C-alpha cells in the first residue's frame, strides 16, 4: 500500500486540452488500400527484411525480423502484396526518408494462424523470444523493445513493476481511453509481465485528471487475481516521464545513465501491457495502435489505427482538418514534432496527431537574450541549470555542457515553456547533444584509425629490419666460414626465425577482428568480385 507520494523537482501546468478527444469511445478506421511500414519503428537495430517485392502476405505475418537483441520485428497489418521495398518519408524529426515496406491490401484481411501462448508452461526465455518476434515495443512513444525489459536479470531482480498511465502531455488521451475501455486486458498484460519478471509489487500510476480511467482500472484490478494498486498521482507535467513517475511512486531516483531495472523497478506504458496481452492470449503481433487525433479536426477522438496508414487518411477519418492548419504534430505539443508531410505513415510511436494552427499554437516571438532569471531551473524536472546549459550550447562549449549533465536532460520542454525571453532552449540542448554524440563517434573512429596506423607503421618497420637482416646474412655468406662465423650465422638465423615467427603472429591481417558490418561488407564484396571474375571468363 502506497502511503505517501513523493515529489520531483519543478514541473509545469500547461493547458490540458484533453476534453476534446477524451469524450468519445475509441473508433475503428477503414483499412486503407496501401500501407507503408518503416523498418525503423523502434530503438535499436533496423529490422531485416524477410519478404521480397511481389510476395503475398497474410495479416500478422512477419515482414522483417529483429536484428540482434535490441531490435523489433515488423508485421503486416492486413493481408496483401508487397509492392515496394524502398526509401520513403517516415515520421522522423529529420524529415529524411528511410527504408520502408509498402503493402497493397487485398481487402480480404486474412489472418495468419493465431495461437495463444501457453506462457506458464514455457521457458521464460522462449516467451521473451516470442515477444521479440512479435514486435512489441514501448507504445508510450519511446518504442524501446519490450522483450529486452522483460528479461529477468538475476543481477538486478525487478521487485516493483509500474504501469504508466499518467499521460501527462496536453492533448493526448489514447491511454486514457484505452484504460477506460480495455482495463481488463491491460491488467491481464500486467499479470503476464509480472510473471515474467517475478515482480513482487505492481503499481499503476494515473494522473488525477483521469478519474474515470482510474475507476475503470480499479474495477478491473478487483476482478483480477493479481495484487495491483492503482495510484492517483498529482497532475504535473512531465509526471508521466518514466523516471519522474518512479520517483513520485517510490521515492527512488534512477541513477544517471542507468536503467530503472538497476534499482529494481521496471516501467511500462499501459498500451504496451495491452499489446503483450494481445500477443500472448490471442497470438496477435503489434499491427495496430490507439492514436489520438485532435487539434483542428472536425471530430477529434481516439482511433484504432493499423500501422502504416497515412496520417492524412487518418485525419479524414476524424472528419478532416480545418483549412487554417499549418501542419500536423506527432506526439504532444511539449515533446512532439512537426511531421515532414501529411502522407507519412502511422508508426508504433504515433500516440497522437494534432492538426496545428496558428491560433492553437501561437508563433513564438523573436527570442531575447537570456536574463538568467532561472525560471527554467525552477521548473526543470531533472534539476538541471538550463540557463547554463543554454550558455554552453550556444557558445559550443560542449565539454562544459557535458560537465553540467546535459545528458540528464529529458527534453521535456518545461524550460522553453516558461522562458520569458522565448528562447528555444530544448532545441539548443538537442543540437548540443547530437553534436557531442557525433564528436564521440568521430573520436572513436580516430582512435581506431590511430591504432591501425600504428600497426601499419610497426609492420613497415619490421619488414625493414627483416630486409636488413637478410642483407646481413648474404654478406655473411660471402665470407669464409670460420667457427666464429658459424656461431654468428646461427645467431642471425635464429633472429630471423624469431622475426619471421613474430611477423607471422602479428602481421596485421586486416580482415581479422573487424566488426560484423565490415565482415558482411567484405563478404558482399567478395561475392561481387567472384561474379565479376565469372563475367570476365565468359
Amino acid at each position, binding site marked *: 500500500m502506497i502511503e505517501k507520494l513523493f515529489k*520531483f523537482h519543478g514541473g*509545469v501546468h*500547461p*493547458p490540458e486540452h484533453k476534453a476534446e478527444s477524451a469524450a468519445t469511445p475509441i473508433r475503428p478506421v477503414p483499412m486503407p488500400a496501401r500501407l507503408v511500414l518503416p523498418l525503423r519503428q523502434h530503438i535499436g537495430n533496423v529490422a531485416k527484411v524477410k519478404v521480397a517485392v511481389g510476395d503475398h502476405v497474410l495479416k500478422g505475418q512477419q515482414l522483417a525480423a529483429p536484428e540482434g537483441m535490441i531490435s523489433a520485428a515488423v508485421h503486416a497489418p492486413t493481408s496483401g502484396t508487397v509492392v515496394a521495398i524502398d526509401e520513403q518519408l517516415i515520421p522522423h*524529426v529529420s524529415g529524411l526518408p528511410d527504408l520502408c515496406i509498402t503493402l497493397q491490401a487485398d481487402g480480404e484481411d486474412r489472418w495468419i494462424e493465431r495461437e495463444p501462448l501457453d506462457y506458464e508452461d514455457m521457458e521464460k526465455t522462449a516467451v521473451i523470444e516470442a515477444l521479440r518476434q512479435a514486435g512489441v515495443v514501448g507504445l508510450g512513444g519511446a518504442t524501446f523493445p519490450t522483450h529486452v525489459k522483460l528479461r529477468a536479470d538475476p543481477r538486478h531482480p525487478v521487485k516493483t513493476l509500474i504501469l504508466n498511465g499518467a499521460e501527462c502531455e*496536453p492533448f493526448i488521451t489514447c491511454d486514457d481511453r484505452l484504460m477506460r475501455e480495455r482495463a481488463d486486458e491491460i491488467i491481464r498484460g500486467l499479470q503476464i509481465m509480472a510473471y515474467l519478471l517475478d515482480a513482487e509489487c505492481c503499481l499503476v500510476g494515473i494522473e488525477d485528471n483521469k478519474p474515470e480511467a482510474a475507476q475503470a482500472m480499479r474495477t478491473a484490478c478487483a476482478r483480477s487475481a493479481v495484487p495491483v494498486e492503482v495510484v492517483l498521482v498529482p497532475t504535473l507535467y512531465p509526471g508521466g516521464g518514466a*523516471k519522474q513517475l518512479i*520517483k513520485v511512486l517510490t521515492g527512488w*531516483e534512477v*541513477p*544517471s*545513465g*542507468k536503467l530503472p531495472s538497476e534499482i529494481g523497478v521496471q516501467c511500462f506504458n499501459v498500451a504496451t501491457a495491452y499489446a503483450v496481452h494481445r500477443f500472448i492470449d490471442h497470438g496477435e503481433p503489434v499491427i495496430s495502435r490507439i492514436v489520438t487525433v485532435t487539434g483542428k479536426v472536425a471530430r477529434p477522438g481516439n482511433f484504432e489505427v493499423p500501422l502504416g496508414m497515412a496520417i492524412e487518411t487518418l485525419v479524414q477519418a476524424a472528419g478532416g482538418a480545418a483549412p487554417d492548419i*499549418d*501542419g500536423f*504534430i506527432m*506526439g*504532444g*505539443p*511539449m*515533446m*512532439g*514534432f*512537426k511531421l515532414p508531410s501529411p502522407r507519412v505513415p502511422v508508426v508504433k510511436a504515433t500516440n497522437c496527431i494534432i492538426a*496545428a494552427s*496558428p491560433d492553437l*499554437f501561437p*508563433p*513564438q*516571438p*523573436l527570442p*531575447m*537574450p*537570456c*536574463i*538568467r*532569471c*532561472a525560471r527554467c*531551473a525552477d521548473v526543470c524536472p*531533472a*534539476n*538541471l*541549470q538550463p*540557463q*547554463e546549459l543554454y550558455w554552453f550550447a550556444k557558445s559550443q562549449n560542449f565539454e562544459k555542457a557535458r560537465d*553540467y*549533465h546535459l545528458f*540528464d536532460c529529458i527534453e521535456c*520542454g518545461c524550460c*522553453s*515553456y*516558461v*522562458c*520569458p*525571453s*522565448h528562447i*528555444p532552449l*530544448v*532545441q539548443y540542448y*538537442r543540437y548540443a547533444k547530437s553534436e557531442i554524440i557525433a564528436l564521440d563517434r568521430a573520436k572513436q573512429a580516430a582512435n581506431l584509425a590511430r591504432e591501425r596506423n600504428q600497426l601499419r607503421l610497426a609492420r613497415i618497420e619490421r619488414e625493414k629490419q627483416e630486409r636488413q637482416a637478410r642483407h646481413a646474412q648474404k654478406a655473411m655468406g660471402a665470407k669464409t666460414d670460420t667457427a666464429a662465423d658459424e656461431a654468428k650465422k646461427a645467431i642471425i638465423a635464429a633472429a630471423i626465425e624469431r622475426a619471421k615467427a613474430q611477423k607471422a603472429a602479428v602481421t596485421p591481417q586486416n580482415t581479422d577482428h573487424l566488426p560484423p558490418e565490415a565482415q558482411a561488407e567484405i563478404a558482399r564484396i567478395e561475392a561481387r568480385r567472384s561474379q565479376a571474375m565469372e563475367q570476365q571468363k565468359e
Partner: protein
Amino acid sequence: MMAMASPYLSEQTSVSMIMRKVLLALVPGIAAYVWVYGSGILVSLLLASVTALVSEAVMLKLRGRPLRPFLLDGSALVTAWLLALALPPIAPWWLVVVGTLFAIVVAKQLYGGLGYNPFNPAMVGYAVLLISFPVAMTQWPAPLELAQAKLSLLDQLRYIFGRVLPSGLTVDAISSATPLDTLKTQLKLHHGMADIMAAPMFGTLGTKGGEIVAGAYLLGGVYLLWQRIITWHVPVAFLGMLALLASGCHLIDADRYAGPLFHLFSGAAMLCAFFIATDPVSGPTTPKGKLIFGAGIGILTWVIRTWGGYPDGVAFAVLLMNICVPLIDAYTQPRVFGHEK
C-alpha cells in the same frame, strides 16, 4: 509560423512584462520619496530615463542590433530608475546624465547589452559618481519636515540645472550630510551612540524620512515576491545577515555600533535588498548561490558602513559580490536528478 521544434506551447510571459512589474513595484517607493524629499526626484527620474533610452538606442544602432525589442524591454528604464533613486534628489543634472551614461554604455552595452552584463549597471554608475564627484554625491537634502527652507519644484529645477538657489539660501541650508555619514563622523569624534541618535535626522527605525521610503520599497518588494518576479533568497539572506551582524555588535557595544533596525531602514539597504541585489543578470542563479550572494552583500555592506571609508557600502558590496557570481554559480550547482552529491 509555428515554432521550429517542440515545445509548441509557452507561458504568457516576457522580459518586458517582468521589467514593467519591477517598475510598477518601484512606484510606492517613488511616491514616498516625493512625499519626504519633494518632487525633485521626478526630475532626476525623467533625466535618467531619457538619457538611458537615448544612449541605449545609440549603442544599439552602433552595434547593428534591432532597436525596437531592446528599447521596449524596459531594462534600460529599470537601470535608470534605480540609479536615480540612489542619487541625491537634488543632484545636478550632469551628475544624473553622466552616471546613467556610464551605466548604460560601459556597464551594459559594452558587454553586449541585456543579459550579458556581469556587473549591476546602476551600481556601476553609482560607484563611478561616488568616486569621481564625492561632494555632489553627499549633498543630500534634509527631509521636508526637517528642512530649514522648503524649495518649490521651480526652485529645485533651478538648482538641478543651474546650481542657483533662491536668494538668501546657502547650500547648507537645504542639504546636509546623510545620517549614515553623520553617524560615521560622530563616532570618529568619540560621541556615544545614544547622543548621536538623539539628533533630529534620526527617526524611530532608521533615519527620519528615509525610513518611510525604505518601508515603501519593502512594500514594492513584497509585490515582486508575490508576483514571483524575484525569489526570497537574496533579500532574506542580505537583510538577515545585515541584521545579524548589526545586532551582534550592538549587543556587545551598543555605544559604538548601531542597531539592526537602523541598518535595515537607512541608506539604500531596502532598495538594494529587493531591487538591486535581485537583478537576475548580474546575480547568481542557484538557490544556494543566491543565499551566499545575499549574505555576502550583507556582510560587506555592514563592514564598509562600520569600518570603511564610505558612509554606505551597498553599491560596493553589490559590485564586489557581482565579481564572485560566476564562481558562486560554479560551486553551488544543485544535485541533478539521479546523481549523488
